């Protein structure tokens, strides 16, 4: 009985999650029927209510202010903003898929993380064609990478970009100084124009300082190298554009794998996995000197390292100049009763005004190029990181970012092969066997 209460706890948690989602689901249609409050009495027509569903902890998509502004200006189209859960992978995505399949429950505008984009692009039947509502005209607003990911397998535009991670290289000034390396961010960026130079710098660092990793682990470096290799190999990674698995055939994947292998074998990684206790502690204690940094990682570093380490971290350019980790999109499900109005709201939220507001509220770095150039973003400085000008650094990293095709099972294959990299780096898999295993795991995950 008591053993089953262990299971019961998990069930209860699951039930609670379902219940929460169920309740919010129930709210969606209800709100549609109910006339929205706050609409001016003079408005003759019944206002249309657009439900906006997102995920994420803290400020999540950061749309409180943007929605308030919209609602004040548009009495005829009222937006209800619902953040469903802070868990994307195990709660939001499965729930959203169920709603899409059953034909009701999903909002009029929904947020989607990068990890779900491959899957959604392979299911065009569930989404409105945004081209129908004139949003093709927005192409110039976005970097190629962000725009292309919003095109589904039928070649239709179904999603527009919200935030983007970008990629920079965070480094510890105090450790660099100890190792006799420059500490100024301009000079540090010049140390590593490409990834080979980055490795050479690492070797110099390791020669001076023992027991401290040059990078935290395998994954961020791997992904940054891969995103640069993607551009050289026809903008594909694990799947070709016909959704065939090419993990073993794409030279870009092998090159990225080999680079991480060399880095790990040279002893330059601290053999850590992101989001573990060890990783947090190592960050606080300065057990690694650099870390691949998307814009949102700045908050993670300052939050984890604490006030005691303020000013020790700084931000330089990423080797090779481009990269990305994370970011989201907005889309309109085909089940929406007001797709035209939903598309208008979507366009506003992904427009300059919406993305600048989200940046101010939640620090979400805009993917919209005009928003990136807004002084609120472009002149933003991060005090914790010695007033590093984060805006220009991250804008630069995504400007030339190669677009990449996400296969239907991209997220699963990515997770499976990166697990092998972590294992090889940490020693549970021999490097000699790692490539074969990397391919095998990719094949299994795509099955």
């Amino acid at each position, binding site marked *: 009985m008591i*053993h089953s209460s262990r299971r019961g706890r998990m069930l209860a948690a699951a039930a609670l999650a379902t219940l929460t989602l169920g309740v919010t689901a129930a709210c969606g249609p209800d709100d549609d029927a109910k006339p929205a409050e706050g609409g001016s009495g003079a408005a003759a027509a019944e206002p249309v209510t657009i439900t906006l569903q997102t995920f994420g902890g803290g400020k999540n998509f950061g749309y409180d202010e943007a929605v308030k502004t919209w609602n004040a200006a548009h009495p005829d189209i009222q937006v209800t903003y619902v953040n469903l859960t802070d868990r994307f992978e195990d709660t939001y995505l*499965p729930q959203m898929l169920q709603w899409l399949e059953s034909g009701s429950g999903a909002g009029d505008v929904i947020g989607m993380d990068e990890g779900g984009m491959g899957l959604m692009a392979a299911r065009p039947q569930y989404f409105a064609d945004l081209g129908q509502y004139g949003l093709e005209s927005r192409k110039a607003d976005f970097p190629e990478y962000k725009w292309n990911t919003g095109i589904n397998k039928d070649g239709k535009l179904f999603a527009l970009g919200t935030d983007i991670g970008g990629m920079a290289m965070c480094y510890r000034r105090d450790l660099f100084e100890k190792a006799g390396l420059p500490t100024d961010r301009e000079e540090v960026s010049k140390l590593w124009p490409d990834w080979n130079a980055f490795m050479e710098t690492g070797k110099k660092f390791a020669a001076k300082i023992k027991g401290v990793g040059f990078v935290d682990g395998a994954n961020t470096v791997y992904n940054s190298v891969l995103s640069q290799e993607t551009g050289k190999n026809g903008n594909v990674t694990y799947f070709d554009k016909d959704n065939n698995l090419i993990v073993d055939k794409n030279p870009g994947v092998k090159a990225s794998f080999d680079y991480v292998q060399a880095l790990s074998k040279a002893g330059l990684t601290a053999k850590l996995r992101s989001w573990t*206790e060890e990783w947090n502690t190592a960050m606080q204690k300065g057990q690694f000197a650099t870390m691949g940094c998307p814009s949102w990682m700045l908050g993670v570093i300052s939050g984890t390292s604490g006030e005691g380490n303020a000013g020790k971290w700084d931000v330089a350019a990423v080797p090779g100049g481009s990269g990305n980790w994370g970011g989201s999109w907005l889309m309109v499900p085909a089940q929406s009763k007001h797709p035209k109005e939903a598309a208008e709201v979507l366009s506003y939220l992904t427009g300059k005004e919406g993305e600048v507001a989200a940046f101010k509220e939640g620090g979400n770095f805009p993917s919209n190029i005009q928003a990136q150039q807004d002084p609120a973003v472009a002149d933003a400085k991060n005090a914790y990181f010695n007033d590093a000008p984060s805006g220009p650094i991250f804008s630069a990293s995504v400007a030339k970012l190669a677009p990449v095709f996400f296969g239907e099972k991209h997220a699963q294959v990515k*997770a499976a092969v990166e697990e092998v990299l*972590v294992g090889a780096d*940490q020693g*549970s898999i021999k490097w000699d066997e790692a490539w074969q295993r990397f391919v095998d795991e990719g094949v299994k995950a795509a099955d």
Partner: protein
Amino acid sequence: MSLHVDAGHVPSRAAPSRGRRHEHRNGPRRFLSWLDLRATPYMFVSPYFILFAIFGLFPLLFTLWVSLHKWQLAGEKTFIGLENYTKLLADEKFWNAVGNTVGIFLIATVPQLLIALLLANALNKKLRGRLFLRLGVLVPLITSVVAVAVVFTQLYGRDYGVVNWILSLFGVENVHWQNAKWSSWVAIATMVDWRWTGYNAIVYLAAMQTIPKDLYEAASIDGAGPRRQFWGITVPMLKPTIVFTVIVSTIGGFTLFAEPVMFGSGLMTGGTTGQFQTVAMFIVKKGFRDFEYGYAAAAAWVLFLLILLSALINFALVRGIGRSK
């Protein structure tokens, strides 16, 4: 239940015997009284069975139905017969998960029940502060399983964990507990044991107190020492209780989930090569990470059968306790 029905029989037989012909015309009323006598008991117990049918039986059968399909969430749903099962039985990752589950179960449960037995025996003696001690062994049970797993995962940390620090005093190099099968299994087994040993001890203690004192007195007079009394009287008398704890532990062990998930930083992969991925984690990964519901449903059914099988094996093994004596 049977008592009520029998009690009702007597008057019902008695009444019609007097006026059977009358009752002939009174069909509906007779039917109602028959219903009252025969069906009421079933009605009283029905809430459980109705709830069970909705929340137990239906999911069970629906899972079976799903398992016969290639069933993707918001994707294709094609009937493929037993293909998921044949694929599953050839899936080395599944068998790896089964091996991990059985392995962790064995190294967690065997010592756990033995320690619980000895602990209960000790608590059954006259001790100072007996109540306090008896309650004390239950304390781990009221801590949340996730809290336990978080704390233990920190204790077993590679770089800054307390366990590695203690080992380093003896010159042992830092162990990366997640990296190898043996080390991850040991770490997870200690979490399970820390939480459940006290509970099993209390169950044993309760059973021990029902053993008649005169058995022990007689044994003392015959010259049996405490050890002989423990193995010759206590353990055989506890047999039904031991069977109970073994079966409950089997079910718990085979559905082990929260501890290994927390130990593997919340991932369903259970380590980089699946060193400690349990069957429950395998099912969640297939169903809710890869969205292959059909395949996950097949795995769930196989797990169900495995639990039944191992509970039966354990039952047979444990039934033999004390028989040789």
